[in-house]
């Protein structure tokens, strides 16, 4: 029927699939779209040497500088070897979550750039479903965040953690779902925002407060009441608490005073919620249009 397809033996004609096979085909297209987007983000990330280096060196400097600065002055009662925890050790889980937080969100915030360069539009006109676009972009951020968190975790012995003691499976899944949640949040924000200014606003209004109020730098229960309330409403705080707990072999140290199950449930729930939000906004939110059209409020042409 299609001349082009008939001419070439290797060619598949445009999918004129019967309904029964259509959903299977859509699923296959979805998986292919996800794979393509993940590979693309990995390629882009590892191709930019400065980005790779910065992503590793920055948290390291952060941990060493702030950690050793406070190390002399502060000690926390907890599950350390001598019944107390050094600040370097207390701060370590917070830095790991910071690595995940910033990497995951900034990888998916690149959607803003994708839209301005027109790349996003090419994905949207392709037959893959919107959920595949969301998951592809999200899992790209997750993969990069996990690689970086993994590299940083190699420093755990120097933070005073014994590798044999760590609950690795819990740690892995906590970090994984934290990364999913934050990447999907980045996707949703990027879909909704339209400019680099928005990007910096996200950074200062959302990310830094979320991290600072997560118990990453100081124990929540020692602060004032409003701090505790803010932390209990902050999904990142549950990630920090869960990561810290897993690193200490299942003992909650200076956390939110919550149980391991609640912490994991919040992390998981946050991941599902943000992915759902991402799918929703990409299907029903204002449609991303190429850069020329948006300059006049979408009404110029």
């Amino acid at each position, binding site marked *: 029927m*299609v*001349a*082009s*397809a008939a*001419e070439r033996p*290797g*060619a*598949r*004609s*445009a*999918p*004129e*699939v019967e309904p029964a096979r*259509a959903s299977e*085909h*859509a699923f*296959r*297209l979805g998986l*292919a*779209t996800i*794979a*393509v987007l993940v*590979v*693309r983000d990995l*390629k*882009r990330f590892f*191709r*930019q040497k400065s980005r790779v280096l910065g992503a590793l060196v920055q948290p390291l400097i952060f941990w060493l500088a702030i950690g050793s600065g406070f190390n002399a002055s502060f000690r926390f009662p907890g599950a350390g070897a001598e019944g107390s925890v050094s600040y370097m050790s207390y701060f370590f889980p917070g830095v790991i979550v910071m690595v995940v937080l910033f990497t995951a969100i900034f990888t998916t915030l690149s959607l803003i750039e994708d839209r301005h*360069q*027109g*790349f*996003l*539009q*090419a*994905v*949207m*006109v*392709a*037959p*893959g*479903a919107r959920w595949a676009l969301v998951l592809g972009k999200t899992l790209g951020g997750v993969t990069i965040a996990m690689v970086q968190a993994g590299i940083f975790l190699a420093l755990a012995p120097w933070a005073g953690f014994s590798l044999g003691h760590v609950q690795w499976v819990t740690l892995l899944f906590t970090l994984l779902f934290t990364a999913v949640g934050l990447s999907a949040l980045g996707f949703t924000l990027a879909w909704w925002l339209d400019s680099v200014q928005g990007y910096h606003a996200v950074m200062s209004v959302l990310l830094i407060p979320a991290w600072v109020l997560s118990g990453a730098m100081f124990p929540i229960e020692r602060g004032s009441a409003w701090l505790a309330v803010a932390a209990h409403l902050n999904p990142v705080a549950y990630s920090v608490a869960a990561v810290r707990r897993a690193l200490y072999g299942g003992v909650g140290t200076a956390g939110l005073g919550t149980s391991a199950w609640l912490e994991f449930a919040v992390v998981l729930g946050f991941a599902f919620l943000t992915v759902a939000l991402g799918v929703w906004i990409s299907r029903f939110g204002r*449609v*991303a*249009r*190429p*850069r*020329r*059209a948006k300059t006049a*409020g*979408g*009404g*110029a*042409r």
Partner: protein
Amino acid sequence: MLAATSTPMTPMSQAPGGPLLVVEGLRRSYGDRVALDGLSFSVGRGEIFGLLGPNGAGKTTTFHILAGLLAPEAGRILLAGRETGPEDPAYRARLGVVFQHPSLDLKLTGRENLQLGAGLYALPRRVARERIEELLRLVDLTERADELVEQYSGGMRRRLELARVLLHEPQILVLDEPSRGLDQPSLRRFWEQILELRARRGLTVLLTTHQPEEAEYCDRLGVLDGGRLVACDTPAALRKRVGNERILIEGDRPEELVEVISTRFDLHAPAVQVVDGRVVVEAPRAHELVPRLVEAFPGGRLRSVSLRAPTLADVFVRLTGHGLPEGDEGAV
């Protein structure tokens, strides 16, 4: 069908099987402003159909609706006789969409961009590999396939984009202002490739344009103004509606020339007027007027006198009462 496509410049909306794409009653507004006011047209198999109009006429809105980036308020789309739309993956798989600005990843190489494109359409790996090499040859980028796209020129990017859009062998190409951002040689080359693809594969092409020169490549043109079609015909037939040839006269002090011509030849505005510093005379049997004009102004008073057939830009002015924008003001 293939035989029909090998005779270019013939409208094929009456080809067997009916039109490939039918758009009916498309409506869309932005706030109070109506961008599309019940737009309908159809594109035959193997046909090159152009939507001609200035910015704001509704071209890009139409393009965005067909590409699925914008939802219409009313109207429907039929592909090969079946009602469908961008929400249907099968529809998207049959479409090849070329944006004004190439939608490539600049941080990847040309070949990687094509691999990515193949992945988005879930092409089997072996098929993808063959087609990528074949298309790289077609668009003449084999040698530079492993360079980052950010090092490509505008013309190269456009060619790579074309290759990427052809990977999944779409039935119909939808192009938004293909001339934008391309210099004349690149544009000519781009169109040679489109025409060749049409001849070889029976590709159907729908494009938007505001350039009369580009509109000449179309088999049929829909002239768009204020969100509706004011005419729809072949370029030749449209030109016939304007009829008269035009004489272009270049010389110093054109206003003075207009006065002299008006009195001597009994021609009055708008039949004789100054347009862009040149005197334009529009008259029936204008060619007979040329020698008399030359004789009327001896002694090098005129720098040049030329005769031209009416262009699609003239057609547009006649149909809508206003002009197409000159030049390519939106070029990158």
